[in-house]
């Protein structure tokens, strides 16, 4: 018999609860829908985009938006709308990669620090404090420089730089959770350390991580844009929103649409990640409900 069946409280299935949340939180639902749409666009980019992202229309360079090119063309005559669609994949990949790395590095470190306590905790906490003293983008730029320029290394660097934030969060939660009775009980039953951490501590310490990771997706998206703008991220012929801004910047007096469009895409996506993160925070924290 598993421990959950002993609970007297009947809980609805996760699908029912999810549906209820969607109806109650319109902004969160809209954000989620927008992000899902973006993922579909990213996956289907070659079929949706009217042109290839590298196809050049020599007769129409730096063209204004028109029926032929919905958002105009860039300085090489490439269709901005098609590049925007193809850039979605790089930008989303970048954000998820960075946050994935941050979770994979930060969560175990925070768990160990919080659960072990003592000098292990002290040492890890000092390291976390130190890494948080570095201006994040600056450290990411330096790490990218050392590991090699390119989108994947740049986002690995961003992920590593973000990981102490999550580690600190998990550590704080773990400190609380490890004193709970069920952890003691599991220990008395002879649960091994990995089992204690994975089965009993992690599931109860993970909720704030979910919220923070969603919020970090917005920050990672902005980091991708920054690094690609500086020439440290995406390299041609690949395209990302940050790179499109860099390109549009050079011709912003003649063709401002090229600079506005990818920036707006970043802004909207970042707002969606942030709104979803705030919604999750409210949904997961019973004390915030009804506010």
């Amino acid at each position, binding site marked *: 018999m598993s421990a959950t069946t002993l609970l007297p409280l009947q809980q609805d299935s996760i699908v029912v609860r999810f549906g209820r949340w969607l109806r109650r939180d319109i902004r969160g639902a809209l954000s989620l829908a927008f992000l899902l749409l973006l993922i579909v666009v990213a996956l289907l980019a070659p079929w949706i985009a009217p042109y290839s992202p590298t196809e050049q229309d020599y007769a129409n360079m730096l063209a204004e938006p028109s029926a032929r090119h919905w958002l105009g063309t860039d300085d090489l005559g490439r269709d901005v709308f098609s590049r925007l669609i193809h850039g979605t994949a790089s930008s989303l990949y970048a954000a998820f990669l960075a946050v994935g790395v941050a979770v994979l590095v930060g969560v175990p470190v925070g768990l160990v620090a919080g659960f072990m306590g003592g000098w292990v905790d002290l040492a890890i906490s*000092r*390291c976390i*404090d*130190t*890494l948080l*003293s*570095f*201006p*994040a*983008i*600056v*450290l990411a*730029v*330096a*790490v*990218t*420089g*050392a*590991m*090699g*320029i390119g989108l994947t290394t740049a986002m690995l660097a961003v992920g590593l730089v973000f990981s102490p934030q999550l580690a600190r969060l998990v550590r704080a939660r773990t400190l609380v959770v490890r004193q709970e009775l069920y952890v003691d009980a599991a220990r008395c039953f002879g649960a091994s350390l990995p089992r204690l951490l994975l089965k009993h501590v992690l599931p109860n310490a993970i909720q704030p991580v979910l919220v923070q990771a969603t919020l970090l997706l*917005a920050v990672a998206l*902005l980091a991708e*844009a*920054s690094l690609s*703008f*500086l*020439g*440290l991220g995406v390299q041609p012929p690949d395209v990302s929103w940050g790179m499109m*801004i860099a390109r549009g*910047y050079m011709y*912003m*007096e003649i063709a*401002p649409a090229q*600079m*506005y469009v990818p*920036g707006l895409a*970043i*802004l909207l996506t*970042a*707002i969606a990640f*942030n709104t979803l993160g705030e919604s999750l925070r409210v949904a997961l924290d019973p004390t915030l409900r009804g506010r």
Partner: protein
Amino acid sequence: MLTRKKLGMIASRLLQALPIAVLATFVVYSLMQLIPGDIAVTLAGENASDERIAEIRELYGLNQPFLVQYGSWLWNAVQGDLGVSLLTREPVAETIARTYPTTLLIVAYAIVLSVVIGVPLGILAASRPGSLLDSGIMSIASLGVTVPNFWFGMILALWLALGLNLFPATGFASPGDGLGTALWYATLPALALCTNGIAEVSRQLRSSLVEIQSSQFVRTLHAKGLSPASILWKHGLKNVGVNLLTVISLLFNKTLAATVVVEAVFAIPGIGSAIVNAVLQGDFPVVQGAVLAMVATVIVVNLVTDVLYTVLDPRIEQA
């Protein structure tokens, strides 16, 4: 004002900062270990002769154990010797001295703007919690957090500089050329950078003001017949003003990071541009030196705000 208890707290803050400072230097030096392959070959650059590689190995002590290398690098760094640029041969310390003041001016300007704009917004929002004004201000604040600073900078440059000719679109004037001119050039970059700060300051101020308005002592003041406005000004702000210090120390870190990209937009030869150029050209001593300078400043700013907080917050005495 400074009691024995507060002095003790300040001393313990200083002691806590020490290991962080040492670890930070270790992180900066270890960055070089991330370079794949033979570091000496990478540092020597493309098509370097074997002699040059050997010279680099000797120069950086790369044939010694890592900790010995780190120790001698740290010893030199403490004395202000951060090595020389691989490309220009300029001492890294001079590069920092040449570029950092410009960056710091812009960052300080952006933080002042954040406070000057963010504080009134926060007070306005807190004066009528839940009102249209409140939710409007908080929506602008969330926009401030998500807007890409460098993109916002471009829009400012396009509208205010190229369109209306109010400010110069690119370039800089160093603080040495006269503060007025320097500030004139720094205005657009600072405006581009302050969106995040405005958001953080107004949110923090609003939430602590709202919290304090629902506290016991404010209820007593209400009962005594004080008007809501004078409660907010006389009692609310006095209690939350100190909290702003914490926000400012966090903001300094974030704004310093964001400057790296904004400098590129406005073609400002600050320390951010120095780092980016050095990274693109593989000039590693400059990268290390500049990162070290920036993290050292963040640690010092954190320490100073912590100490100020301890000195200024009256509640610490009772705790």
